[in-house]
């Protein structure tokens, strides 16, 4: 028992994490969510379902992913030992596939022939298109027009996989608007469509099931830590947009009070400039968007703010409701890394370790750079390297003045 044991029993029956979460949706969606909840709850502890999930993770995704000791980088930073949980080595190149495998199995059981998804950086879209191809499901992915511009490679990948990528021109033309459009599609086509949400946000039961499917990351990391380090790590660091890779890593450690956890949000141009995507670090007010109550960046009139981040995958004004609670109870520390620090970390890991991270986990790496030198060499940090950086090459090249 730990003082945080209560956190493992959430959400409650109505999807609340303390004051956060819930199911704030139009009545037109209630049926679909009740149906999904019923399906998931009946399978959550079903050994056959879990075995099928584990088999796919092993043979299709390539799990377990390694826990890699970044010895050279650690030495260079001159402090704690940094270990990278290599989610970038998963099939499709990010942690996102853990969740899409799980939800695709639910879709298969529901018998619906069509899946839809929203995507920001395109990693969730690619992971969805991938499982749809494998199961022979029709797949449509909603993506903000601005994100389509900055993630062209992933857009083409999705098309090669047979998915139809739909450009979303409304609102801020980024992830939140893609999610609005996907929800509208689902309301309209609920009879034959399964909505694969990519993060631990959205209405209940999505924050629960996306967390569950990603928790394999933390379970593995915990075992690997015991085997390779000989004890639990001192600190976990993960980037937080909606927060699925962070919850996946953190959740299995929640009762380990000695393990400090840090979520790193997108600081954009800097919290003080207002041009960021860091609702937790900036202490944004409580609000309701996309079916859940959480910390939400909005203006005085309650209109959702536009956000800014170098990484499309973190460019979201809200955050998963479980993170909101973990901030309030002090289980996780939330900080922000700004675009400039993120780019430095991206380049540094690439040069020093020969591993090119996605810009999203480069936020976590940027914070590791800050704290590792303040720690002793016999202390250990695990950073969730949640995705690989190939998709971001064009973004970085543009900053370098290269044009392909």
């Amino acid at each position, binding site marked *: 028992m730990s003082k945080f044991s209560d956190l493992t029993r959430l959400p409650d029956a109505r999807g609340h994490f303390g004051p956060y979460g819930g*199911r704030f949706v*139009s009545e037109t969606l*209630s049926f*679909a969510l009740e149906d999904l909840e019923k399906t998931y709850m009946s399978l959550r502890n079903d050994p056959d379902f879990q075995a099928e999930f584990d088999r796919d993770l092993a043979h299709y995704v390539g799990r377990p992913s390694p826990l890699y000791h970044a010895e050279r980088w650690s030495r260079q930073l001159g402090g704690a030992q940094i270990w990278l949980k290599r989610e970038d080595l998963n099939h499709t190149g990010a942690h996102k596939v853990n969740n899409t495998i799980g939800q695709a199995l639910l879709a298969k059981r529901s018998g619906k022939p069509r899946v839809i998804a929203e995507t920001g950086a395109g990693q969730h879209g690619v992971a969805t298109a991938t499982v749809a191809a494998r199961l022979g499901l029709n797949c449509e992915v909603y993506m903000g027009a601005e994100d389509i511009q900055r993630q062209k490679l992933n857009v083409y990948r999705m098309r090669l996989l047979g998915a139809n990528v739909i450009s979303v021109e409304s609102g801020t033309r980024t992830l939140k608007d893609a999610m609005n459009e996907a929800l509208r599609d689902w309301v309209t086509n609920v009879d034959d469509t399964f909505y694969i949400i990519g993060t631990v946000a959205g209405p209940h039961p999505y924050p629960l099931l996306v967390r569950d499917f990603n928790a394999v990351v933390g379970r593995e990391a915990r075992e690997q830590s015991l085997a390779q380090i000989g004890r639990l790590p001192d600190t976990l660091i993960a980037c937080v947009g909606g927060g699925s890779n962070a919850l996946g890593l953190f959740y299995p450690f929640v009762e380990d009070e000695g393990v400090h956890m840090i979520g790193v949000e997108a600081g954009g141009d800097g919290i003080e400039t207002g041009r960021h995507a860091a609702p937790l670090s900036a202490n944004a007010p409580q*609000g309701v968007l996309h079916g859940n109550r959480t910390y939400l960046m909005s203006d005085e009139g309650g209109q*959702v703010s536009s956000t800014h981040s170098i990484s499309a995958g973190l460019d979201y004004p809200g955050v998963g409701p479980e993170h909101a609670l973990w901030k309030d109870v002090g289980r996780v520390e939330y900080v922000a890394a700004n675009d400039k620090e993120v780019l430095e970390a991206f380049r540094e890991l690439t040069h020093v370790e020969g591993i090119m991270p996605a810009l999203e986990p480069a936020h976590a790496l940027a914070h590791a750079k800050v704290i590792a030198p303040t720690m002793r060499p016999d202390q250990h940090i695990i950073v969730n390297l949640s995705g690989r950086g190939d998709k971001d090459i064009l973004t970085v090249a543009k900053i370098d003045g290269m044009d392909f």
Partner: protein
Amino acid sequence: MKGAGMNRIDQRFATLKDQRRTALIPYITAGDPGPAHTVGFMHALVEAGADVVELGMPFSDPMADGPVIQKACERALKHDVRLTHILAMVEEFRRNDDETPVVLMGYLNPMERMGLQAFAEQAAASGVDGVLVVDMPPEEADEIAPLFKEHHLHSIFLVAPTTSKERAAIICAHGEGYLYYVSLKGVTGAANLDVASIEHQLDSLRQLTSIPLCVGFGIRDGDTAAAVGQVADGVIVGSALVSRIAENCDRPERASDELKALMSEMRQALDA
């Protein structure tokens, strides 16, 4: 501020029942195409036969709305239309019309940001009669429902074709004023009405509640209004009206005339 007497919505439906008439309920988005036009549009709608006016509160992320109302929200938000402005519009409307019920319809976040207590108080003081919060099902209404009740604001809820019997019972237990039955799967502004199926659904809802049952989504002209009017206590029309405004953004007088023309067509069709 109205007294502790009957809510205007209940009064209006009682009168309509005596007259054996079907309620005609238009929806427009407050502040579309600019805040100066809304009160005039509301009076025009009433003049042409509206029994209740639904006023949309624009939101940056209107998840349950189709493109027509999304764009109306964007037009209104260009003018930074806020809840306080919308309540002032209702107050201005009330100077010349103390009878027609006004229902606000929108999403939860702007209300929460204003403060639910402040919103309920000021809405009641402005002459609002009911509120429909699109993204707040009864299960999540524990905080807001008592506040609305205290200020004599009716909580209006949606019922969908996919709503289960168990949920319908919960919604009926919480709903006041009228139930808003969503006639089809989809977002606002979609097509394809199935009147037989609507009739069947309304029949089962009547087993659960005695409040009026109004139908929205897919009603766009006199014919569709009349068809639904055969089976419902009221018809709600939104996107068809908002499209008229969209087509005449630069000509508000023309927009007003077109709103009136469509309302009159529906009124006549309903009363025929």
